[in-house]
C-alpha cells in the first residue's frame, strides 16, 4: 500500500474521530454545552490527536528503521568472496537495489508478472537486457547472487510495507477507540489537549537539538578517521596546503584559517560601520516616509544570491581594485584578492548588521531619549551616550551574526579571492578560506578513505567550533550587559 494511502487513512480516521468525539461529548451532556468540562472542540481534537499523532510518529520511525533492517538482512546473502572491501560491498548493494527497483518497475508496467519477477533465474534470462528494454539501465550483467539478493530485497520490502500499513492503521484505530471511549461529560479534554500540544512543541524543539547533535557526531566520527591517517599536529600547525591525491599531501590548516579570518575581518570592517550608521540614520533621523522606502531597499541586499555577489566581485570589484590600487601601489597584479572578497562580502553583510541594529535601536525606550533631551543633550550626544550603550548587547549580537555568516561564506570567496591557499599579509593577494577548500576536496571523484577527502570533515569541524565559539561569546556578552542594564 503506498505511503500516501496510509497517511490518508490515518488522517481520515482522525477527522472521523473529531466529529464522533464531539458528538459523543455533546450527547453525554444532553446537548447542553455548559454541563461539559471542556468545549466540544476539545473532545474532538482529543480523539483526533490520539488517532493521528502516535500513528504518524511510529510511521516515521518505521520508515527510518525498515531500510536498514532489510539492508542488513540482504547483505548477509552476498558471499564474502564477492565483496572483499566495504566499498565493493556498497557497490554491490547499490546494484541490488537497482535491480529490485527495476523489477518493481517491470511488474508495474506489466512487462513481467509478479510471479515471473520472483522466479527469474539469472542463468536463464538476460536481466540486463530485459530491464534495459523498459528503461532501467544497469552498469554490468546481473550475477545470480545479485538477482537473488534483489528478489529477497523485494520480498522483504513488500512484507515490511504490508506489516507497516497494518500496524499503523491498527495503532490509529486503537488510539481512536481509546480516546473515543474516554470521552464523557467529565473527561478533562481541554487539559489533555493542552498537554498534547506541549508534547508536540517539545518534539519539534528536540528534533532541532537532535539534528545538531547528529551533525556534530557525524563530523566527529569522520574527523577521527582523518586523524588516524594524518597527524593532528601537522594539520593544526602546518603552514602549507598542498593536497595531492597521489599521497604525500601537506594539509596544514593555518593558511586556510588565516584566509578565513582575514577576509572576515575585511568584511566586518566594511559592514559594521556602514550597517550601524545606516541603522542609526534609519532609526533616529529618517522620517517615516524615508524609512519605509530605505529599509526594504537595504534589505534587498540580503536577498541577492551570493553567487551574484561573486560575479560582481569577479568582473567589477576585482579588476577595479587591481587597476586603481594594487598595480599603481605595487601590491601585486592579481584581480582576485582578500580585499575584493572582503569588500563584496562586507556589502552583503550590511543588511544583516543594519536591519538587526535598527530593530534594537528602535526597542530602546523613548523615555531614555526624553531623559537625555530633557537635560539639554543634542541628538547625536543622546545616540552616542544613551542609545548605543543601551542597545549594545543587541548590536554585538548582530555583529557576531554577521561574522558567522562571513566565516561560512563560500561563493564570494571562490570568485573574489581565488582558491590559492597562502599565508600572507598583503590584502591584494589571492587567498582562500576553509569553506572553499572543503568544497574543493569533496568535488569530483573522491575516495572517502583518503586523508585528502577526509580532511574536509576536519576543516568543517574546525569551522563549526569557530562559529560555535563566536556564538557563545555573543551570548556571554549579551547576558553580561543585560544583567547590568535591566
Amino acid at each position: 500500500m503506498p505511503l500516501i494511502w496510509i497517511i490518508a487513512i490515518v488522517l481520515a480516521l482522525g477527522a472521523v474521530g473529531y466529529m464522533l468525539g464531539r458528538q459523543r461529548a455533546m450527547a453525554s451532556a444532553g446537548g447542553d454545552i455548559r454541563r461539559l468540562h471542556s468545549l466540544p472542540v476539545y473532545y474532538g481534537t482529543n480523539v483526533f490527536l490520539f488517532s493521528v499523532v502516535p500513528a504518524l510518529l511510529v510511521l516515521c520511525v518505521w520508515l527510518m528503521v525498515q531500510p536498514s533492517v532489510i539492508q542488513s538482512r540482504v547483505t548477509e546473502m552476498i558471499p564474502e568472496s564477492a565483496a572483499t572491501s566495504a566499498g565493493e560491498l556498497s557497490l554491490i548493494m547499490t546494484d541490488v537495489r537497482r535491480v529490485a527497483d527495476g523489477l518493481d518497475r517491470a511488474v508495474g508496467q506489466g512487462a513481467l508478472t509478479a510471479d515471473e519477477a520472483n522466479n527469474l533465474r539469472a542463468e536463464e534470462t538476460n536481466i540486463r537486457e530485459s530491464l534495459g528494454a523498459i528503461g532501467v539501465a544497469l552498469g554490468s550483467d546481473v550475477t545470480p547472487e545479485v538477482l537473488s539478493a534483489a528478489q529477497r530485497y523485494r520480498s522483504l520490502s513488500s512484507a515490511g510495507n504490508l506489516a507497516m500499513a497494518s500496524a499503523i492503521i491498527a495503532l490509529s484505530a486503537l488510539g481512536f477507540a481509546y480516546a473515543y471511549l474516554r470521552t464523557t461529560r467529565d473527561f478533562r479534554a481541554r487539559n489533555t489537549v493542552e498537554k498534547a500540544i506541549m508534547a508536540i512543541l517539545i518534539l519539534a524543539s528536540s528534533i532541532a537539538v537532535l539534528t545538531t547533535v547528529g551533525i556534530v557526531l557525524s563530523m566527529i566520527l569522520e574527523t577521527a578517521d582523518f586523524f588516524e591517517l594524518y597527524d593532528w599536529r601537522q594539520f593544526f600547525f602546518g603552514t602549507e596546503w598542498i593536497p595531492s591525491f597521489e599521497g604525500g599531501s601537506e594539509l596544514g590548516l593555518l593558511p586556510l584559517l588565516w584566509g578565513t579570518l582575514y577576509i572576515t575581518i575585511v568584511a566586518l570592517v566594511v559592514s559594521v560601520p556602514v550597517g550601524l550608521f545606516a541603522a542609526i540614520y534609519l532609526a533616529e533621523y529618517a522620517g517615516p516616509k524615508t524609512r519605509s522606502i530605505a529599509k526594504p531597499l537595504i534589505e534587498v541586499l540580503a536577498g541577492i544570491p551570493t553567487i551574484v555577489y561573486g560575479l560582481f566581485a569577479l568582473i567589477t570589484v576585482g579588476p577595479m581594485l587591481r587597476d586603481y590600487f594594487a598595480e599603481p601601489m605595487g601590491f601585486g597584479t592579481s584581480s582576485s584578492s582578500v580585499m575584493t572578497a572582503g569588500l563584496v562580502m562586507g556589502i552583503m553583510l550590511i543588511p544583516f548588521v543594519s536591519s538587526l541594529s535598527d530593530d534594537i535601536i528602535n526597542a530602546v525606550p523613548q523615555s531614555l531619549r526624553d531623559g537625555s533631551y530633557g537635560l539639554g543633550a543634542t541628538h547625536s550626544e543622546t545616540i552616542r551616550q544613551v542609545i548605543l550603550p543601551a542597545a549594545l548587547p543587541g548590536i554585538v549580537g548582530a555583529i557576531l551574526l554577521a561574522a558567522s555568516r562571513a566565516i561560512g561564506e563560500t561563493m564570494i570567496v571562490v570568485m573574489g579571492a581565488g582558491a590559492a591557499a597562502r599565508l600572507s599579509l598583503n590584502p591584494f593577494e589571492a587567498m582562500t578560506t576553509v569553506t572553499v577548500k572543503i568544497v574543493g576536496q569533496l568535488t569530483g571523484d573522491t575516495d572517502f578513505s583518503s586523508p585528502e577527502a577526509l580532511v574536509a570533515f576536519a576543516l568543517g569541524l574546525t569551522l563549526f567550533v569557530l562559529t560555535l565559539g563566536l556564538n557563545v561569546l555573543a551570548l556571554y556578552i549579551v547576558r553580561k550587559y543585560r544583567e547590568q542594564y535591566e
Partner: protein
Amino acid sequence: MNDMTTIERAVTTSEKKIDAKGVNVHYADTHAIKNVDVEIDDKTVTAFIGPSGCGKSTFLRCLNRMNDTIDICRVTGDILLDDEDIYHPKVDPVQLRAKVGMVFQKPNPFPKSIYDNVAYGPRIHGLAQNKADLDDIVEKSLRRAALWNEVKDRLDKPGTGLSGGQQQRLCIARAVATSPEVLLMDEPCSALDPIATAQVENLIDDLRSRFSVVIVTHSMAQASRISQKTAFFHLGELIEFGDTTQIFTNPVDPRTESYITGRIG
C-alpha cells in the same frame, strides 16, 4: 521718577521667571491647549492640576520645548523665559533644556552607573573643569536629591538597579546637576510609594530655594502640600490660576471647586 520705575521693573522681572501668553498647541488636528496665559514666579513651586488629558503635561513640555521632538506637534503663542522668547528662531532648544530641566513621570535612569547618570549633564555641557570638580558636582547633586547616603558606596553600580523611589531621586539629582533655572516635573511621584513620595516632596520644597519648580500632579493633596501657586486646567483651557491657598479654599470658578471637591475628574 524714572529711577523708581526702573527699580520697580527690576523687582518684577527677578520674580517672574516664565511668562506664557496666548499659548496654543495642536497635535495634528487636535487642539490640545487653548489660549493659555500663565506666569511662573522664580523660587516658587507652581502646581498644574486637572483631570487626565486636560493638557497640563503638554503645556509643561512647551516650557522646555520638549514638544519639538514630536513631529506632529505645533506650538503657537509667546513663552518668555527671563523676558526672552524661547520659541524665537535664535534660541537653541538644546541650550534651553539645559536651563529648564525636566523630571519625568516614570523614573528613566540611563543604562549607566549612578555616577555617570548624574555626571551626564555636567559632562555634555562642560560644567566641570576636572575630575575633582565633577566628583563635587555629583556629590552635591546626590545630596540635594537626598540620595547620597544611600548610594555613596556604590556609585559605580548601574542606576537601573536602584528601587523605584531611589531611581526617581536619581533622575532629580541628574536634572539638578546641570544647575537649571527652572525644574519641570511631570507627575514625578505617580510611580512611587507613599514613603518615597514624601522624600521627593521634601526634596521639592528644598529645591525651591534655588530654582523655580513647576510640577504636574494628579494628587490634589500633593499640590496643596508643596506648591505656592496652582493652575487648574480643564479640556485644554486654563480655568483658574492663583495662590494655592486661594484655589483650594476659595476657588472662583465653579469647575475648579467641582474638581477639588471630587465632583469631576
